[in-house]
C-alpha cells in the first residue's frame, strides 16, 4: 500500500474510532474546584499542565520534591493558545540537568507510567517523533514515548533491550489521530507493558528485565530528542510521570478526571432553553431527523444508538456521550453544535439549529429524561408510517392565486401559487408555431407538416384555446400517440426483442407485448387495468390475446434458460436472477420501490423486510416465461404463465443465497403498503374470481392489491405513474427520482400538485389521456422556453419557463425520416431489423446472429419503436443517443452530449442517405422554377419549414444561400464527371444534413 493511501485510510479510521470519544465535562484546569484531586496522586513524580508559560519555562506542577522545570529553546516556535501548549515547529523542551528524581523513583520500583493529553499535528510524523523522552540522543535512552506515523511507540531500556530501548512496544497503526487524545503507557515490575488510549487498554505486552541499566545522567525532554533531531509537533495539555505502574482503574480515573481545561463550553454554546424540555416532543424528532441514519437500528456508527434509551445512555465505543445534568459539557452537544471542527454531527448535511442545540442542552441539564416505552428500535418503520408516498390518497384543495387569469387548468394554479410565493413571474405563452411543434413532438414524436403549421396558425388567430384543444384531440387520437408514449413505457418494461446473454436468441413473438402497450395507450386503457393485465392478464381474461400478451411485461427482461446438462448451481443462479429481474422491475417500474435491494437483506432505508421480497417472489416462482398460445390461433407470445394450479414451495434465503433456506414463505405483499386486508384475503378472492383454472392466481392477488387504493398499494401506484407522465412532458418529474419513491427519494417540488393529480387521476378512472390533455393545455406547458433565470430558481425547478428538452434518439430518427418524406407509418406487427454496419456486430456464438447484408428499403423506414432491439447487437444510431440497453428497468434516460452523436449525424450512411432524400424532396418542390437563385431560396425556405416548422430569418437565409452556392461550386470544380443534377443534389444534401444537426432540430423549443 502506498504510504499516502495508508495515511489517508488510517486517518479516516481514526475519525471513526474517535467519532464518539467519551468526554467528561470535568475540567482539569479548574483545580481550585477540586477536580484535580480526582487524579491519581500516589507515586506522581513530575507533572506538566501547561497552564502558564512565561519566560520560556514549562513548570513542573507535581509538588513532589524539587520541581523539574523544562526550558524551551525556541519560544517563538511554540504558542500558548486557548489553554493549550502548541508546538508549531521544532523545539527542544528539556530539563536543564538530568531528570534525577524521575530516574531514581523508577529505578527503585522498576515500574513507571507516562501519561499525556496530546493532540498530534498529523499522523505522518515519524522518527519516532519524541513526545516524552529521558534520553541523550537518537540512539541512547532510558525511555521514550513517541509517535511513529499512525501509532504510538514506547522505547524502554531494560536489561533485555538494547541501549536504544529496542525492541519497542507499539500500539497498532491507526491509533494516532489529530484529536485530543489521552495516552498512557505503563510498565509493571513483572515486565508487562500496557498502552491505554482514552482510558481503554489497547496493548498488553509481556517483557522482562530490570531497569538497573538506566542512565542517571539523561535529561527529560518533551516534543523532541534533547539532541533536537526528532521533533514532534502538536499540542500538549498534560504530561505526568509516575514512579510506578498504574492499574486500569487508575488510568480510567485519570482519564475521567478530564482533559485539560480548554474552553468554557457553556459560553461557546447557545444558551440552554429555559422551558421544560420534553423528550418525545422536542428531542426525539431531532434524533430522528439528524442522527438516526447512522445511529439507530442496525446502524450504530461509533457504537452509538440514539433510538434506544439504554443504548444511548451507554454511549459509544469510547464511553458516554452525555454528562449527567451538564449539557454544556456533553460530547453529544459539542458535536451537534460543531464545536470540534474536525468532527461535526451530522457530518455532511445541514445540522442542528441554535434552537435545537438549546433544547438539547436543556434536556441534558434537566436530567436527560427519557420516558419508558418511547424507544425507536427501527426508525425505518417509524419513517414509513409518516413517509408521504406511503400514505393513502388525501384530498387537496386547488390553491387560490393572485393572477388567476393566467391559469388555464387547475394544474396552473398549483404551479403559479409556488411562483407567486417566490415572487417569480411565469413566462408568456409561446407562439402558435412553437406550440404546434412542441405539442406534436411531445404527444406523437413527429414534427407537424408545413401545411399543418399554417392551418393551426390560422385557426389560432381566431381562437387559440379552441385551436389547441382540437390539435390535442387530433394528436391523442392518432396511432402515433401510442407509438410515442408506449415507447416511454417500454423503457420501464426493459423491453427488447432478444434474450440477451450469450446466445441472444431472437424473440420473434415478443413484439405482441410491445403492440399491447401501444394499443393500450392508443385505446386509453385505464392504468390500473394496464397494470393488472401486465401482472396477470391471463388470470383475468385467459381467452383475450391482449390480456395474455400483456404478461410479456414480466417476460421482457434478459434471460435464457440453461440446458439441464449444465451444473445445478449455474441453473439455480440463472433462475433466481430471472425472478429477481421480474420483481425488481415490478418494484421500480410500478411502485417506485427498490425491491432489488431486499434480495440480500432487509431494505436499508425503506421498511421492507427480506420476508416481503421473498413472499412476493414466491408468486413468480410458481411460473415462468414461455411461448403462450393466443386463444385458438396458431400464434404464441413470449409471456408468463404459471406451471399449474399448485403454488411452488418458496423460501426466504439468507443473503440471497439460494442454498441457504431460512424459512418457508407463502404469498405476501409489501407489508407497509398493506392495510386492513390480508394477502390471503386477496388471494382467496382472486381464486374465486379468476376464470383460469390452471394457475395459482397469486399474480392476480398481487395485481388486485397493487391497484387497491384503500387497502393496498394503489395510492403509491397512482403517484408513481402520474409522476412518470409529468416527467415525459417536462423533462423532470415532480419527484426527480422517478423510480424511487422510498424514504430516500427526492422530495416532490410540488407535493400538493402531485397529490392532487394522483387523486384526480384515480377519481377519473386512471385515464392517462385525460391527464395528458390537462397537462398540454395548461398555461405552464405553453410558456416560452426562454427567459432570464431568477436567482431563486436557476434550475427552473418551479417551471417558470418551459424547459428546453432534447428529443430521444428514436424521435430524432423518426423526425429525419418524416421531413425527408420517407417515414413508413405502418403500425404494429413484427419488429424490423435495420442495417447495422458489420463492424458494429461484435458478438460471437449467438444462436441468432444479426444479418450483415440487410438492404435498406421502405419497410425498414418504420418508426423507431418498431425497430428490432437485439440486446447484444444494439442499433448504433439509437445507442449513441442514449437508448437504454434493456437490461434493467429504466425510469429516466441519460441525456448525454458526446462526440459519437456528432459523428453519427456527420458520417453515418443512414444520416447522409436520409439527408439526400430530403434534398431530393426540396429540389422536387422547386422544379417549376428556372431561376437558380429562386430555386435556392425555395430549398432553404422549404427546408426550414419542414425541419423547423418556421421560416428562415434573414441571417439564416443568407448564410445558407452562401453555403449551398459554395458547396455547388466546390463540387463542380472537382467532380467533372458528375451531372449538374447530381452536384445540386449533393450540395442540397449537405445543407439538409446541417439542418438535421441543428440544435433547434433536436431540442423541443
Amino acid at each position, binding site marked *: 500500500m502506498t504510504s499516502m493511501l495508508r495515511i489517508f485510510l488510517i486517518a479516516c479510521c481514526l475519525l471513526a474510532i474517535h467519532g464518539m470519544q467519551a468526554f467528561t465535562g470535568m475540567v482539569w484546569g479548574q483545580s481550585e474546584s477540586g477536580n484535580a484531586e480526582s487524579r491519581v496522586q500516589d507515586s506522581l513524580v513530575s507533572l506538566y499542565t501547561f497552564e502558564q508559560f512565561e519566560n520560556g519555562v514549562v513548570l513542573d506542577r507535581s509538588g513532589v520534591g524539587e520541581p523539574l522545570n523544562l526550558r524551551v529553546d525556541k519560544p517563538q516556535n511554540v504558542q500558548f493558545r486557548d489553554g493549550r501548549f502548541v508546538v508549531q515547529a521544532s523545539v527542544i523542551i528539556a530539563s536543564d540537568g538530568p531528570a534525577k528524581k524521575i530516574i531514581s523513583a523508577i529505578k527503585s520500583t522498576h515500574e513507571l507510567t507516562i501519561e499525556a493529553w496530546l493532540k498530534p499535528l498529523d499522523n505522518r510524523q515519524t522518527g519516532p517523533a519524541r513526545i516524552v523522552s529521558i534520553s541523550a540522543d537518537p540512539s541512547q535512552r532510558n525511555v521514550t514515548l513517541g509517535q511513529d506515523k499512525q501509532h504510538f511507540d514506547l522505547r524502554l531500556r531494560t536489561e533485555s533491550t538494547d541501549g536504544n530501548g529496542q525492541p519497542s512496544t507499539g500500539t497498532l497503526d491507526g491509533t494516532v489521530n489529530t484529536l485530543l487524545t489521552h495516552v498512557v503507557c505503563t510498565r509493571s515490575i513483572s515486565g508487562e507493558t500496557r498502552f491505554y488510549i482514552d482510558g481503554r487498554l489497547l496493548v498488553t505486552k509481556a517483557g522482562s528485565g530490570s531497569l538497573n541499566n538506566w542512565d542517571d545522567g539523561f535529561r527529560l525532554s518533551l516534543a523532541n530528542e534533547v539532541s533536537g533531531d526528532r521533533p514532534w509537533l502538536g499540542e500538549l495539555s498534560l504530561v505526568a510521570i509516575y514512579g510506578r505502574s498504574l492499574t486500569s482503574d487508575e488510568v480510567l480515573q485519570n482519564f475521567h478526571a478530564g482533559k485539560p481545561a480548554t474552553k468554557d463550553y457553556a459560553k461557546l454554546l447557545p444558551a440552554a432553553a429555559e422551558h421544560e424540555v420534553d423528550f418525545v416532543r422536542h428531542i426525539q424528532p431531532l434524533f430522528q431527523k439528524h442522527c438516526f441514519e447512522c445511529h439507530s437500528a442496525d446502524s450504530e456508527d461509533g457504537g452509538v444508538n440514539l433510538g434506544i434509551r439504554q443504548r444511548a445512555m451507554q454511549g459509544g465505543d469510547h464511553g458516554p456521550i452525555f454528562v449527567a445534568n451538564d449539557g454544556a459539557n456533553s460530547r453529544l452537544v459539542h458535536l451537534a453544535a460543531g464545536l470540534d471542527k474536525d468532527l461535526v454531527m451530522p*457530518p455532511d448535511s445541514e445540522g442542528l439549529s441554535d434552537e435545537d442545540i438549546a433544547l438539547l442542552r436543556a434536556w441534558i441539564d434537566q436530567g436527560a429524561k427519557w420516558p419508558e416505552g418511547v424507544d425507536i428500535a427501527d426508525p425505518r418503520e417509524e419513517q414509513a408510517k409518516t413517509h408521504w408516498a406511503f400514505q393513502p390518497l388525501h384530498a387537496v384543495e386547488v390553491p387560490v392565486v393572485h393572477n388567476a387569469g393566467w391559469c388555464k387548468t387547475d394544474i396552473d394554479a398549483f404551479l403559479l401559487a409556488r411562483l407567486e410565493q417566490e415572487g417569480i413571474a411565469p413566462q408568456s405563452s409561446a407562439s402558435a408555431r412553437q406550440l404546434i411543434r412542441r405539442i406534436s413532438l411531445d404527444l406523437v414524436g413527429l414534427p407537424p407538416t408545413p401545411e399543418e403549421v399554417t392551418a393551426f396558425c390560422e385557426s389560432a388567430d381566431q381562437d387559440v384555446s379552441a385551436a389547441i384543444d382540437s390539435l390535442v384531440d387530433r394528436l391523442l387520437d392518432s396511432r402515433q400517440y401510442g407509438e410515442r408514449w408506449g415507447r416511454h413505457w417500454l423503457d420501464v418494461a426493459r423491453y427488447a426483442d432478444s434474450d440477451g446473454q450469450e446466445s441472444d436468441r431472437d424473440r420473434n413473438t415478443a413484439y405482441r407485448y410491445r403492440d399491447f402497450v401501444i394499443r393500450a395507450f392508443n385505446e386509453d386503457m385505464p392504468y390500473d387495468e394496464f397494470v393488472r393485465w401486465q401482472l396477470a392478464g391471463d388470470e383475468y381474461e385467459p381467452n383475450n390475446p391482449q390480456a395474455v400478451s400483456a404478461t410479456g411485461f414480466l417476460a421482457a427482461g434478459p434471460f435464457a434458460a440453461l440446458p439441464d446438462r449444465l*451444473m445445478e*448451481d449455474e441453473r439455480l*443462479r440463472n433462475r433466481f436472477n430471472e425472478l429477481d429481474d421480474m420483481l425488481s422491475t415490478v418494484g421500480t417500474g410500478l411502485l417506485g420501490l427498490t425491491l432489488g435491494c431486499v434480495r440480500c437483506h432487509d431494505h*436499508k432505508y425503506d421498511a421492507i423486510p427480506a420476508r416481503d421480497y421473498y413472499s412476493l417472489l414466491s408468486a413468480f416462482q410458481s411460473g415462468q416465461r414461455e411461448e403462450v398460445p393466443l386463444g385458438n390461433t396458431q400464434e404464441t407470445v413470449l409471456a408468463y404463465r404459471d406451471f399449474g394450479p399448485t403454488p411452488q414451495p418458496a423460501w426466504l434465503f439468507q443473503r440471497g443465497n439460494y442454498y441457504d433456506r431460512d424459512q418457508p414463505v407463502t404469498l405476501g405483499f409489501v407489508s407497509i403498503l398493506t392495510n386492513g386486508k390480508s394477502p390471503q384475503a386477496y388471494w382467496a378472492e382472486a381464486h374465486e374470481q379468476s376464470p383460469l383454472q390452471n394457475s395459482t392466481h397469486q399474480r392476480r392477488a398481487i395485481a388486485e392489491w397493487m391497484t387497491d387504493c384503500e387497502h393496498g398499494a394503489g395510492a403509491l401506484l397512482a403517484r408513481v405513474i402520474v409522476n412518470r407522465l409529468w416527467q415525459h412532458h417536462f423533462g423532470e418529474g415532480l419527484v426527480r427520482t422517478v423510480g424511487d419513491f422510498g424514504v430516500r427519494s427526492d422530495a416532490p417540488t410540488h407535493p400538493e400538485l402531485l397529490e392532487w393529480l394522483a387523486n384526480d387521476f384515480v377519481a377519473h378512472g386512471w385515464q392517462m389521456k385525460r391527464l395528458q390533455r390537462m397537462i398540454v393545455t395548461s398555461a405552464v406547458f405553453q410558456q416560452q422556453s*426562454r427567459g432570464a433565470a431568477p436567482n431563486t430558481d436557476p434550475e427552473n425547478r418551479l417551471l417558470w419557463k418551459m424547459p428546453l428538452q432534447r428529443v430521444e434518439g428514436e424521435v430524432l430518427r423518426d423526425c429525419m425520416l418524416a421531413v425527408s418524406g420517407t417515414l413508413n407509418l405502418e403500425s404494429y406487427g413484427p419488429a424490423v431489423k435495420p442495417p447495422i454496419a458489420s463492424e458494429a456486430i461484435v458478438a460471437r456464438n449467438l444462436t441468432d446472429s444479426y444479418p450483415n447484408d440487410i438492404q435498406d428499403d421502405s419497410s425498414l423506414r418504420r418508426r423507431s419503436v418498431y425497430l428490432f432491439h437485439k440486446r447484444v447487437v444494439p442499433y448504433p444510431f439509437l445507442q449513441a443517443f442514449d437508448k437504454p440497453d434493456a437490461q434493467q*428497468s429504466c425510469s429516466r434516460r*441519460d441525456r448525454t452530449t458526446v462526440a459519437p452523436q456528432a*459523428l453519427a449525424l456527420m458520417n453515418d450512411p443512414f444520416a447522409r442517405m436520409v439527408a439526400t432524400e430530403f434534398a431530393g424532396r426540396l429540389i422536387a418542390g422547386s422544379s417549376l422554377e428556372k431561376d437558380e437563385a429562386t430555386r435556392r431560396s425555395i430549398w432553404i425556405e422549404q427546408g426550414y419549414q419542414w425541419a423547423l416548422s418556421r421560416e428562415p430569418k434573414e441571417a439564416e437565409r443568407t448564410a445558407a444561400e452562401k*453555403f449551398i452556392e459554395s458547396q455547388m461550386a466546390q463540387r463542380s470544380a472537382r467532380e467533372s464527371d458528375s451531372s449538374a443534377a447530381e452536384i445540386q443534389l449533393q450540395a442540397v444534401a449537405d445543407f439538409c444534413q446541417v439542418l438535421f444537426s441543428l440544435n433547434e432540430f433536436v431540442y423541443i423549443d
Partner: protein
Amino acid sequence: MPNSHRAHCGRYESMLSRRRWLQRAGGGLGGLALGHLLSNSQSHGSEKQPGRSGAEDGVNLNPLSPRVSHFPAKVKSIIWLFMEGAPSSVDMFDPKPELTKRDGQRISIDVFNGSPGPLMKSPFQFQQYGESGAWVCDRYANVAKHVDDFAFIKSLHSDSNDHVPALYQINTGIARPGFPAAGAWVTYGLGSENQNLPGFVVLGNNQGIKGGPLNWHAGFLPAAHQGTLFRAEGSPILNLVRPAKVEQRDQRNQLDLLGRLNELHREMHPDESELLGRIQSFELAYRMQSEAASQIDFSQETQQTRDMYGLDQQETKSYGSKCLLARRLVESGVRFVQVYSDGEWDAHSDLAGNHTGHCRATDIPIDGLLTDLKQRGLMESTLVIWGGEFGRMPVSQGNGGRDHNPQGFMAWMAGAGIKGGTSFGETDEIGYKAVVDPVTVHDLHATMLHLLGMDHERLTYFHNGREYRLTDVAGNVLTPLLS
C-alpha cells in the same frame, strides 16, 4: 440537493462506517464523480462532493476531461491483455507436481459440462526463469523473459462456470449483464488524457467476443464511458469515415454553417450550456476523425518495432498489431485499453494444441509490448494485466481437454506500482480451488483502481435508489503485490 448523502445499502459491508467517515472526512478529495453538466445524469456523487477539478468549474464540455484522483496515482493507463476463453493456470504459469503424480486418477468433482475425466497432467514442460525463479511453460519462452516484472495472482476465483456470466463478472464485477465495465468506471472516475480519442478502448477480435458489447458497457453510467471498439485496420471507430461524396472541405463547410446557425439559435437561449456543449461536440468529432485514423497508421514505426511485435509473421500479426496499437493509444493518453486475444483458449479438447496455438499467437507480441513499454519509459505509468475470465479444471474432458473452472485461476500484473517477481495466493495441490489467500474479482478491481489513485469504496454512482460501486460491497486492495 435534498439527499445529500444517500449511501448505498452495503449492510454487510464491514467497512461501511469507515467508508462513510472517510467520505465525510475526506470530502475535499472526493470530487471525483463527474459533474458533467451535459449529461444531466443522476450523478449525485458529484454534487455532494465539494472538491472539483479545474475542468469541472464552469461549463464542463466533456465527461472525459481529466480529473484529479483521490490520491496520487502510480498508474496513468491500463493495458489488459485479455485471454478470452480461459487459459489453464496449471499449464501456463502454475505447474502442480501433485497433478503430474496423480495423472489418470479419478476424483469426485463437479464440472460445468458434466462427465468429468480423470486428473490430467500438463502436456507442457516447465522451467524456472529470472531471479524470482517463476515457473513458465515452454510455450511462453518470450513472455518468460519478463517474469521478474510480474506479480502473479494464483488464487483468483469467481462465481460462474459459464463463459458469458464469467466474462461479465471479470469485466464488471457482477456475473449478470448490464453493469458498467471496469474501464467505464475508470474513465468515469478519471476522465482521459486525450480528448480526441475515446478514454476506454477495446481491441476486439475478428470473430467477435462472447457476450458482446456488454463486456465493455457503460451500464448505468453515462453512455460516454462505454468502451469503444477500435479496429487495427480500416476505420478504427464506427462512423469515423465520411460518407461517400463528402470530402473534408465539404464537411468543414458544413460544420462552419452549423456553428453559425447554432450560434444564432443560442442567442435566444444564452443560459443553456447544453446547447454550447453540443456545438462543441461537433468540433471534437471532427478532430477525432484525424486523430483516431492516425493511431492505426503504423507506417512510421521502424522495422525493429515491427519485428518486436511480430507484425510480419502470419501467426503473430493480429495480436502483435493490437499490442502495438495498445502501446500507441496509451502513449497518446488513452486511459484503459483491453486487448482481446483471437480465438478462444477454451480447450474442451486437445488442450495442448489449443494452448500451443494461442501461445504462439501471443508470446512474441506480449514480449514486444513489454519490451517496448520499458524502452519508452511507459512502464513507469502503465499497468499491464494478463488473464482470462476463469481457469480450467485439473481433470480432463473429452480428448485431452479441460472444462471450465472458476474456483481457482490466475492472472499477472506488471508495470507501474507493481512489485515484480512476486506471487500471491495458491490453489490446492492439483490446481482446483483457491485455498491460500483467495482473491476475488472485486479485489482485482480494487487493486486496479487503487493503482490509478482511486479508492474503490469512494468511486460511486447513484442509480435506482442506491450508490453503486465497481466492487459492489466488497474488494480489498492486494497490497502485497504493490511496490
